């Protein structure tokens, strides 16, 4: 695995950042690029481009057996890990490079402010409004509070403060969160993730191949799953739960583990409420209990379930999801800046849209 710097990277194209991340990932795996016969990459969120996998392959000087783009928004990175694993397992390819890069901070950002069809006439525009709608229903139904959402931001920002590569390293308190400006009520600014330039990549191969190639410290993929709610917020009968439930059940079953076995979790935190609902969907606590679960340092160091130990989207980088996979790898290797003692099993969630898409990855030994 490897990545670029995170933050503002003016003048860098997304292809350039992808190549830098891929090069770092190949160096980390200790292999030559010519072994790669599968290149999977999500096209940059902020600017759709046709045949992006082929463009990246050209920049990498490769003519792979398999390349392309699967559009699952923020869930794509784990989705690509799953495709790579299945392709390797079935003999379609041998070594896969999976990458993502985007430059919404220095480049165009319009995709993040897209109007939601005809509903734009009501001012229903952009992801913060969508997640605020989800948050309100959770608050109304279960009594979840803004202060509980703040606990998530406080934890991620504290973890990010220890991470030299994090984009935002200033820790905050619950009071700071409450004082941060209201963006879309009930969400404050500090409930919302960063906007970041950057790239990250990983290499996937079979355990046998990793042994043959003497890959230093490979981390086994134990399970993966997906579940796609698909429907837009306006047609969803219930905003407080999604097919993340199915995604997690599939991944946990494949890995032969249950939520209580997990040592550390890297959960997609584009907005605090997203992480809170994921805790419920994954079975770390019952539906409606997410607010209580995150209180009192329970998701911090030494808590019942440390989450987002490199800072997550709220602090490390706002890029969608690959950094969470990489931090899970570090935790299993024992090299995180916020290392959980004896972490053997890590779970990662990726999701996209307003919780339309979801994928889950279990790593460990």
């Amino acid at each position, binding site marked *: 695995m490897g990545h670029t710097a995170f933050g503002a990277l003016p003048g860098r194209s997304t292809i350039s950042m992808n190549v830098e991340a891929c090069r770092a990932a190949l160096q980390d795996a200790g292999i030559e690029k010519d072994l790669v016969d599968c290149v999977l990459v999500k096209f940059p969120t902020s600017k759709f481009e046709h045949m992006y996998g082929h463009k990246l392959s050209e920049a990498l000087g490769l003519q792979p057996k398999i390349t392309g783009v699967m559009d699952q928004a923020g869930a794509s990175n784990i989705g690509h890990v799953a495709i790579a694993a299945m392709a390797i397992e079935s003999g379609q390819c041998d070594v896969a490079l999976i990458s993502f890069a985007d430059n919404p901070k220095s480049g165009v950002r319009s995709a993040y402010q897209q109007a939601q069809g005809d509903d734009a006439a009501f*001012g229903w525009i952009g992801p913060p409004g969508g997640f605020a709608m989800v948050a*309100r229903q959770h608050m109304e139904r279960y009594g979840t509070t803004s202060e509980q959402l703040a606990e998530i931001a406080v934890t991620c920002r504290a973890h990010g403060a220890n991470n030299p590569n994090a984009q935002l390293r200033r820790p905050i308190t619950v009071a700071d969160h409450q004082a941060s400006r209201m963006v879309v009520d009930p969400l404050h600014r500090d409930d919302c993730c960063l906007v970041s330039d950057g790239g990250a990549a990983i290499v996937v191969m079979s355990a046998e191949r990793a042994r043959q190639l003497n890959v230093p410290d490979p981390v086994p993929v134990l399970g993966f799953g997906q579940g796609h709610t698909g429907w837009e917020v*306006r047609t969803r009968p219930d905003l407080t739960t999604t097919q993340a439930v199915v995604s997690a059940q599939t991944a946990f079953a494949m890995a032969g583990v249950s939520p209580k076995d997990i040592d550390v979790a890297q959960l997609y935190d584009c907005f605090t409420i997203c992480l809170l609902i994921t805790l419920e969907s994954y079975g770390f606590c019952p539906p409606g209990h997410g607010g209580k679960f995150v209180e009192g340092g329970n998701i911090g160091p030494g808590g019942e379930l440390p989450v987002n130990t490199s800072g997550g989207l709220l602090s490390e980088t706002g890029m969608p999801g690959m950094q969470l996979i990489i931090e899970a790898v570090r935790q299993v290797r024992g090299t995180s800046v916020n290392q959980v003692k004896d972490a053997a099993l890590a779970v990662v969630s990726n999701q996209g849209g307003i919780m339309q898409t979801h994928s889950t990855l279990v790593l460990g030994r």
Partner: protein
Amino acid sequence: MSEQAAAVRSPRDEYWAAIEEGSLRFQACQECENRWLPPRDHCPRCLSGRFEWQTAGGEAEVMSWVIYHMEYGPNFHDRLPYNVALVRLVEGPQLITNLVKASSDDPEEPDLDSLKAGERVHLRIARWPDGPLLPLFAVSDRT
């Protein structure tokens, strides 16, 4: 309207034409019991293309709502802060809307401090200044 013209009018066009005429309509499947919005060509439950339009009675309940304090698109600066709500018609279909004061004829931003999910709201087809006619919903005045 000629048959040809009718053929090129999409369900979305039909929906907004009815709003212009002062009624909120939703689609009802003629092969199963499903009723839905937003408008589309096929029933998302049984996939039949045979549907009829039914007119909403105008009663709905609030499922959730938000208040924008920042401008995300053009044209909303003067209305900040403004609400967006998700409501469910008593007939079943759901839609995105703005909640407005019951007591004034022209749309006005209501006080939502004591609003609760599940509260009943009533259809009010009206326009914001310089905007199109929209299906808005009136929330009873706070005391």
